[in-house]
């Protein structure tokens, strides 16, 4: 199934940041979002994930199909790595966590409390969470922060395997992962300061 975003306008803090975003993501494909800081990558991803409503435009094929991975990992410091993953697996409907542990080399760490992990290890556990959800569309916001070269390779491998299995992914990232992926530069979609798109502050202008 295809994720189809048409003519999307998104706002942050009542001000439109991106307008007219149109993108199409087929099964087995990945899309990399590029743009300077503040371009609206996070806002776009949160809107597609359904965490905030779009000002305009439509998003088809996202509901109940996306797994969202943000800057924070969603790990509990007082639970072990495997307990954390098993919890998210059960929330998304009882899946096996061994594949996810293996993909990010978390087997040796499975009984460590998440609070005692290093930043990179936490990040790996957070990324492994996406695998246990078994959702077809991954939305990833700066997934490689604090990962070393080996871990980035693990991540690229996991994304490749996900795509090969018919999944798809949208990534906001600045580094080259060596993935077969299209790139979408968000700069042309930037909302003009005087544009009127139904943002909530416009009534006052």
């Amino acid at each position, binding site marked *: 199934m295809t994720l189809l975003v048409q003519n999307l306008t998104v706002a942050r803090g009542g001000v439109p940041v991106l307008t007219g975003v149109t993108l199409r993501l087929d099964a087995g494909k990945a899309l990399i979002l590029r743009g300077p800081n503040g371009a609206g990558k996070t806002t776009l991803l949160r809107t597609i*994930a*359904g*965490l*905030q*409503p779009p000002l305009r435009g439509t998003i088809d094929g996202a509901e*109940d199909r*996306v*797994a*969202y991975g*943000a*800057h*924070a*990992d*969603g*790990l*509990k*410091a*007082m*639970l072990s790595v495997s*307990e954390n993953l098993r*919890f*998210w697996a*059960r*929330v*998304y*409907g009882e899946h096996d966590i061994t594949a996810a542990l293996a993909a990010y080399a978390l087997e040796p760490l499975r009984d460590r409390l998440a609070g005692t992990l290093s930043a990179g290890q936490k990040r790996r556990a957070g990324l492994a*969470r996406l695998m246990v959800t078994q959702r077809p569309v991954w939305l990833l916001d700066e997934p490689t922060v604090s990962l070393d070269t080996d871990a980035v390779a693990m991540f690229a491998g996991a994304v490749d395997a996900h795509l090969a299995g018919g999944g798809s992914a949208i990534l906001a990232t600045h580094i080259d992962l060596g993935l077969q992926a299209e790139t979408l530069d968000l700069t042309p979609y930037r909302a003009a300061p005087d544009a009127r798109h139904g943002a909530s502050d416009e009534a006052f202008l």
Partner: protein
Amino acid sequence: MIALLLRDLRLALRAGGGFGLGLAFFLILTVLVPFSVGPQSTLLGTIAPGILWLGALLACLLSLDRLLALDFEDGSLDVLATAPIPLEGALAVKGLAHWITTGLPLVVAAPALGVLLNLPGAGYGWLVVSLLLGTPALSMIGVFGAALTVGIKRGGLLLSLLVLPLYVPTLIFGAEAARRGAAGLDPATPLLMLTGLSLGCIALLPFAASAALRMNLR
């Protein structure tokens, strides 16, 4: 949803503070009361039901600011909001977990603290019953307050300011039932009102809380 309940219970047990802190606070508050009002046992016996209810209410309030704030900070709430379980249900479960870790221990501890305050013999049963029926409302109102203030830095004080006025009807009916029980009167009317209040809170507040939480996550 059971997974969420088990996780919250496990976290409350492991993080240590969350579980014991409310109880310890309840104990200390009860011990401080005779120091402030004097040791006359008749006076203590008269005010015991009210003091125990107030203590339980404040102990409930104590752990509310951690109820959703921790999940908000580590990103769990974003993931929960996009998960297949409805957010209303998730919040109701979080309220249940809060009640099991905070309300239920208070109900169990209240009779022991009643001894310290010279609670009349007839009052013990009704005190436990009224707390058992009233604390679920306290937890659910707390979830609503926590959902309102989750995005605010250092929202703890504001949370108390918002939640305490909402606690007024529960406190009135709960303490009235306990007081009537201790005085040997019939506590049926306030108990029924209290039960209705709790059931109403459980039925409706998860919807208000999840609406507020979605606004905060935007």
